[in-house]
C-alpha cells in the first residue's frame, strides 16, 4: 500500500528520542506541509509543496532560555494553527519554558516565551522529576501545553503575533502524557501517564468526561468522536468521547507506541512504535458499516527506533517517519494501483527467427 519515496536529511545532528518527536501541519489551500522535530536544543522545521513533492526547505532554531541565554533541553515540539493566524506556529516545550516561533517570518525570532516556574502553580510537585512539557495541541485560538505537574498551560493567540497566557487547567494528578484535538469536531482530549483521559468541553474550560483506562498512556489522538490511545506497552485503544466506553483494542506492537496520527478525510489511522513498525488502519464509524478498525497495511523499518510518524496530508496518502539517532526522516507514499494490462500485451512476445 505504501512505498518508500526518499530519505530527507536533517541539516545537522540526529533525532531526539522523545515520543511524538515529529509534528506536522498542512495548509490545504496552499498545498504546503510543515514538519517540525527536535534534537536536544535545536528544532528543525521543514516545509514542502505536498502536491508537487518539491525539495524540502529546512530552518533550524537553536533554543536558548531568554533569561539565562543557555541552551535548553527540548522535551516537546508541536506545530499548531490557531484560527487567528494565517500560518502555523511552532510551540517548543522545554525543561524551563514554552516558546513560540513563527514558521513563515523570522523563524529564528521568539514571538512569545513563558517560563514554567512563573505559570505553574505546582512547579515543584515532584522533587525527583524536573520540570518538562509533553503534549501540545490547539483548539480554536487556545494553545494547550501539558506539563510534568499535570497542569495544562493555556496560551491565547490574539492575532498574528500576539500571544498571552491564561490560568492553567489543573485536572490531571500525574504528568500529562499527551493532548490532542480533532480539528473538525474541535474535541480536545488530554491524557496523563496514570491512564486517565479527560475529554474537555468546548471551549476548553471544564471537564466533559473522564475515562480511566488503567493503562500507561504515552500518546493520544482524536478521530470521528473517538479518542485513540497508544500505551507504553504497545496497545492501541479506542474510546468513545461521548460515553467513555472502550470500543476496540489493537495488539499490534511489542514496544511503546510513539505516535498515533490521523487523516481526517480518509479516516486512516497510523500507529508507530519503537518496535520499528508502523501500521495503517481504516476507521469505520458510519452506518450501515459496523464500527471497525480495519487493518490495512504494516511496514517494518529495520533497526529504526521510531519516535515520530505522521500523515503529511489530510487524505493520508503520504507518511513521514522520524527515528531515534537517525540523521534523516523517511518519506512514504501510497502506491498507485496499476491499471490492468490489455489482453494483447499479456501475451508473451515471440522471438523473431
Amino acid at each position, binding site marked *: 500500500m505504501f512505498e518508500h519515496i526518499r530519505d530527507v536529511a536533517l541539516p545537522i545532528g540526529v533525532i531526539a528520542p522523545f515520543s511524538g518527536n515529529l509534528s506536522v501541519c498542512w495548509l490545504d489551500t*496552499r498545498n504546503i506541509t510543515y514538519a517540525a522535530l527536535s534534537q536536544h536544543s535545536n528544532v528543525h522545521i521543514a516545509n514542502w509543496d505536498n502536491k508537487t513533492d518539491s525539495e524540502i526547505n529546512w530552518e533550524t532554531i537553536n533554543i536558548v532560555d531568554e533569561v539565562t541565554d543557555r541552551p535548553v533541553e527540548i522535551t516537546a515540539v508541536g506545530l499548531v494553527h490557531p484560527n487567528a493566524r494565517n500560518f502555523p506556529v511552532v510551540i517548543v516545550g522545554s525543561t524551563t519554558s514554552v516558546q513560540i516561533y513563527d514558521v513563515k517570518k523570522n523563524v529564528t525570532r*521568539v514571538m512569545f*516565551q513563558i517560563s514554567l516556574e512563573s505559570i505553574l502553580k505546582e512547579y515543584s510537585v515532584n522533587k525527583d522529576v524536573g520540570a518538562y512539557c509533553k503534549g501540545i495541541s490547539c483548539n480554536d485560538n487556545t494553545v494547550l501545553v501539558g506539563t510534568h505537574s499535570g497542569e495544562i498551560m493555556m496560551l491565547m493567540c490574539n492575532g498574528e503575533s500576539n500571544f498571552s497566557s491564561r490560568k492553567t487547567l489543573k485536572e490531571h494528578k500525574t504528568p500529562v502524557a499527551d493532548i490532542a484535538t480533532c480539528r473538525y469536531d474541535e474535541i480536545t482530549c488530554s491524557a496523563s501517564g496514570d491512564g486517565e483521559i479527560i475529554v474537555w468541553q468546548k471551549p476548553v474550560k471544564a471537564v466533559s468526561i473522564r475515562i480511566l483506562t488503567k493503562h500507561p498512556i504515552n500518546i493520544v489522538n482524536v478521530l470521528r468522536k473517538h479518542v485513540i490511545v497508544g500505551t507504553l506497552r504497545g496497545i492501541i485503544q479506542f474510546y468513545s468521547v461521548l460515553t467513555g*466506553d472502550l470500543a476496540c483494542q489493537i495488539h499490534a506492537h511489542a514496544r511503546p507506541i510513539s505516535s498515533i496520527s490521523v487523516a481526517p478525510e480518509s479516516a486512516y489511522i497510523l500507529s508507530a512504535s519503537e518496535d*520499528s513498525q508502523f501500521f495503517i488502519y481504516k476507521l469505520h464509524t458510519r452506518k450501515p458499516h459496523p464500527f471497525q478498525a480495519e487493518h490495512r497495511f504494516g511496514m517494518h523499518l529495520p533497526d529504526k527506533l521510531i519516535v515520530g510518524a505522521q500523515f503529511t496530508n489530510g487524505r493520508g496518502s503520504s507518511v513521514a517517519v522520524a527515528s531515534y539517532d537517525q540523521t534523516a526522516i523517511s518519506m512514504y507514499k501510497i502506491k498507485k494501483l496499476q491499471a490492468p494490462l490489455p489482453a494483447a500485451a499479456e501475451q508473451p512476445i515471440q522471438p523473431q527467427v
Partner: protein
Amino acid sequence: MTEKALPLLYLNMAGEMMYILDQRLKVSAEFTAGDEKSKSEKVLKDIILLVLGKSTLDEIFKTKMIPPKKNLKIVFEKLAHASIMRLNENSMDKLFDLMIMAVKYSMVKVTMAEQILTVSINHLQGIQDILPTDLDVRNAIEHAFTMYCSLYRPLSVQHWHLVRTSILQYLAGVHIKISLLLRDDRQSPEGVFVLNREDVAVQLAPDMDQVPIGTVIYYQNGKRVEEKDEHFEVKFKYEPYKNLPDQLNVPERSTDMGENWYKKHGSLRIQGGGGIGKNEVGYKAGNEMKFLESLMSRDLSTNKDLDSEIMAMSLFDDPTEEKNYIKESEEWYGKIMKIDATKNRKSLKSTIEEKTGGSRPSSADKKGATKKSKGAGLLELMDEAAARPPTAKPRRGTSTESSSVKPKSRSGSRPKERAPSASAPKRAGSAKKKAAAN
C-alpha cells in the same frame, strides 16, 4: 528532566568498565608470574571498592544532571586510577567508548524501561563475579544493591520511560563500531544497532502475552465480543516476558543484557575510531558539576607511596592498533561539521534592544573579552588535571575561579534579515474540511 538517570547510567558504565579492566588484567596476568595475578586482584578490588563506595554513590545520587561526556570521562578516569594501575590517554578514550556503546546497546534493546533495573543488577552481579570470594566486595555490592532497589523499585512506568528517554537523549549521536557487536550481528557496519532479527523472537512486556500480537478486539457495553475478533499478519515471532526475580545470586533474570560478555568473547577492538569523551561536540559547561568538584578535590587513590609499584596497562593489543585508533578517531572528528545555529538566532532581548535603539555594546565587541559559561573554570581545571601525569604530586591551593572577565551578554552577532513575504497568505480553506468531517 529526571534526577534518576545519572545513578543508573553511572552503575551500568561502571560495570562495563570493571568487565573491560578485568578482561585486560587477566590477559596480561596469563603471561606473567603468580605475583602479577594477586596484583591484578588487588587493582580490581581497589577500583570496585571505590566505584561502589558509599561516599561515591552518595555523590552520584545527589547529583541532579548528567554531566557532559567529557566530564563523565574524567570521573571514570579518576575511578580507574584508584589503584596502582595506570591507563594512557588513548586507552582511557577507548575504555570510555566501549563503556558508552555497551550501555547504549542495553538502553536501546530493553523490553521495557523498567528492565534497566535488571540490566543494572546484572552489572552488579557481574562485578561481584570478578572477585566472588572477597567479603569487602560482596558487602559493597549488597550495599549498592539495597541503595538502587530502594530508590528505583517504587518508580512508576512513566517515570521509568522518562529515565530511559533521558539516557537515550544523552547517548544520541554516538555510533562507535564495536567489533564484538559487529561480529555477532548486533551492530550494522554503519554503526547502527540491530534491533530485531527475524530468526530471534521478540520479548513481550509482562501481561502482553495473553493476547497474540496482530489481534483486534471489539467491545460492546464494556464486554468483549469474541466472535468479532480480527487477526492480521505480523512479521516477527514473539515470546512472553520471563518474570524472574531481580535479585543477586539467582541463576537467571529476565534479560542477559548487562552481563559480562567479555567472558566469552575477548575482543575489545573498535573499528573506525572513537574518542567520544574527548571529541564531544556542542556541549556547554554548566554549573551542575558540583559532584565532580567534590570528586576532584578528593584524593581517590587508595594506595599512597607506591610509585614504584605503578602498573601501566594498555587496552590495545599492539601499537599498530593504537595508531589506527588515533588516526581513525582524528579522521572521524574531522568529519564532524560544526554549525553554530545560535549565529542566526534573534533573541527577544536583542530584538527589544534593536527596537529601542539600545546602545549598550555587547561583550563580543569588547576587545579581548572572551565568553565563558558557568563551570568553564572548573572544566579548565579538570583538563589540566587530566593532562598531568597520574603520578604527579597533588597541587595545593588551586583555585577554580577564572580570572577572565565575565561578559554581560551572550553574543553581539546579528542574524541576517529575511526577505519579507510577497503577500499575506490566505487562511487554509475550510469547505473541504467540513465536507470531510461530515
